[in-house]
């Protein structure tokens, strides 16, 4: 962004109105008297419980309008007042105001507009430091070969931003672009962008960012949660600059900031970020999209439609399965979406599935979900030095390094290995693989832990030989 653009760039993107609404559901069962009685008693108990609870907790006021999402073919008029819309090729998703009253058909009204980072935790630090503070852990587990380091592949990450002041990310060389959907360019309504390849003056970038923070309360690009920095370090942290090295240090990284410092965002912000990816796939050669967040949503939600559209452009989407525990069927969206590569968490020290990791199956019972697993317990990562937590454990030899746990840190490892495989495939075939070809490569070269299952998937994907 040049100075001229900076002058008239910005208005902060506003928080959407969070209007809670209750979507009624009905169940009708035809059965003989005895069965009907038994079923009615059970369903009645549940209905009373849920309706009672939701009525008390989530009743909208009489005058409140509801916010919903509709999906229509692009160009088709939308019969409601549109708050915001996102075009994904031939499909347009619109956030609309719905009048009070019964819910029209075909409208998605989320119980909550919020999207969360999968809850993550600091490493316990109970073991000897030597067991976690070096990134040798996942480099060796995933058989990293420096010959294939993701060169020529761009990985996009939608997260909390990045600590661009860390030299480990090689700003301008491998960290090529910063995008923020928290602010909009007033001239075209697009998210603001800082192209580090064109302007790698980090002081200017920081000053610009700080100015926004002072004026509107949010840093546009800087990571104030630490999550995005940690995730990015697993992908692209440069070798020889500390204890942590990424699995694809030759890849280009685009960080799209769509989450606030407290780790929350909304469907609107996330859709804006996904639309930016969709519109810029070709321009920046985005081949992999890494998502370390999720939400419990019904299958027909707009997030899924947006991600399907991105996949249709040949982008491989990798998502964290979630940290809701080993409860069958708790993989959150977008990881649960067919076609998205979901990654569960594995404890590489004990050789067991992490007890916080979400596991399958999903509605599509025949699909193995999550597809892969990767190190997610006490993973050594880069973490901004200006963020502190009670009880945090830092590497005594490198204060920028700490250990974190969560499937958030397994997904980028798989995304990075995919970047390595893409480079490998492109080198030998002169073309990018399709998703099916890539999956075949990953599955054939994975370290199979057992038969394919919904806890460890096809195993740990290994880097190219």
């Amino acid at each position: 962004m040049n100075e001229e653009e900076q002058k008239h760039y910005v208005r902060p993107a506003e928080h959407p109105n969070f209007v809670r609404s209750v979507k009624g559901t009905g169940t009708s069962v035809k059965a003989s008297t005895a069965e009907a009685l038994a079923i009615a008693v059970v369903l009645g108990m549940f209905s009373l419980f849920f309706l009672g609870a939701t009525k008390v907790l989530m009743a909208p006021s009489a005058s409140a309008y509801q916010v919903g999402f509709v999906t229509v073919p692009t160009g088709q008029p939308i019969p409601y007042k549109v708050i915001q819309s996102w075009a994904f090729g031939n499909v347009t998703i619109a956030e609309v105001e719905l009048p009070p009253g019964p819910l029209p058909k075909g409208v998605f009204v989320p119980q909550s507009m919020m999207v969360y980072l999968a809850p993550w935790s600091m490493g316990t630090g109970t073991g000897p430091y030597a067991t976690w503070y070096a990134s040798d852990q996942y480099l060796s587990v995933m058989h990293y070969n420096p010959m294939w380091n993701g060169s020529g592949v761009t990985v996009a990450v939608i997260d909390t931003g990045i600590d661009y002041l860390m030299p480990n990310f090689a700003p301008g060389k491998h960290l090529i672009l910063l995008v923020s959907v928290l602010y909009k360019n007033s001239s075209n309504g697009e998210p603001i962008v800082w192209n580090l390849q064109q302007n790698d003056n980090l002081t200017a970038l920081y000053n610009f960012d700080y100015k926004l923070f002072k004026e509107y309360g949010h840093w546009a690009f800087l990571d104030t949660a630490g999550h995005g920095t940690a995730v990015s370090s697993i992908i692209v942290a440069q070798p020889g600059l500390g204890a942590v090295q990424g699995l694809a240090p030759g890849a280009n990284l685009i960080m799209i900031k769509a989450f606030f410092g407290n780790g929350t965002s909304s469907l609107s912000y996330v859709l804006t970020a996904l639309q930016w990816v969709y519109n810029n796939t070709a321009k920046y050669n985005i081949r992999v999209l890494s998502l370390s967040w999720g939400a419990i949503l019904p299958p027909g939600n707009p997030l899924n439609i947006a991600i399907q559209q991105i996949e249709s452009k040949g982008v491989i989407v990798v998502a964290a399965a979630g940290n809701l525990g080993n409860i069958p069927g708790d993989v959150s969206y977008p990881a649960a979406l067919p076609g998205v590569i979901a990654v569960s968490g594995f404890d590489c020290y004990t050789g067991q599935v992490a007890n916080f990791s979400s596991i399958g199956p999903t509605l599509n019972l025949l699909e193995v979900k999550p597809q892969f697993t990767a190190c997610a317990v006490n993973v050594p990562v880069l973490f901004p030095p200006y963020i502190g937590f009670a009880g945090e454990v830092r590497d005594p030899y490198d204060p920028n390094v700490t250990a974190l746990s969560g499937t958030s840190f397994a997904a980028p490892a798989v995304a990075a290995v995919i970047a390595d495989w893409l480079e490998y495939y492109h080198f030998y075939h002169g073309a990018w693989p399709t998703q099916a070809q890539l999956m075949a490569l990953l599955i054939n070269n994975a370290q199979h832990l057992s038969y394919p299952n919904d806890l460890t998937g096809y195993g740990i994907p290994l880097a190219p030989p």
Partner: protein
Amino acid sequence: MAKRLPPDIFFNLTGLGLAIYLAITVLFTSPLLAVAMIIATAPFAIDIYESVIGRPGISRGTALALVIVEIFVLGFFLLIIYNVLVALPYSSLSFLLILIFLESVFSVYAIAKDLREAYDVLSGKPIVLHYVNIDREVKHYVKEVCQKSE
């Protein structure tokens, strides 16, 4: 008391209680499992009803509806059993997962029993009505099976 009630009731009560408990426990983390558990309460509740009051005849439509719903749920529970068994060396086996595994086994048994009965109805076999009478004098139960032709 234990001698006066058929053992099926204890199995079914355990299955029903566990299904309700798990449905509530996982409601916000795994709506899919919660729905499966809610559906799984039906075979247990029906079996309890049959054990105590007697088994009514069911229409073919009802049997077909049961088959369709229960086959999906059966597949889901079989998948859970498969996953836990296959990934056993890598699973940390939390208490909740063990409960879910046990409930899956119970549900598979109950659903399989229901499916067999539904198959009888769909294939036009004579409807078999089971009546369970508790004989309070001799402190044990007697099961009478009355066959009725179509």
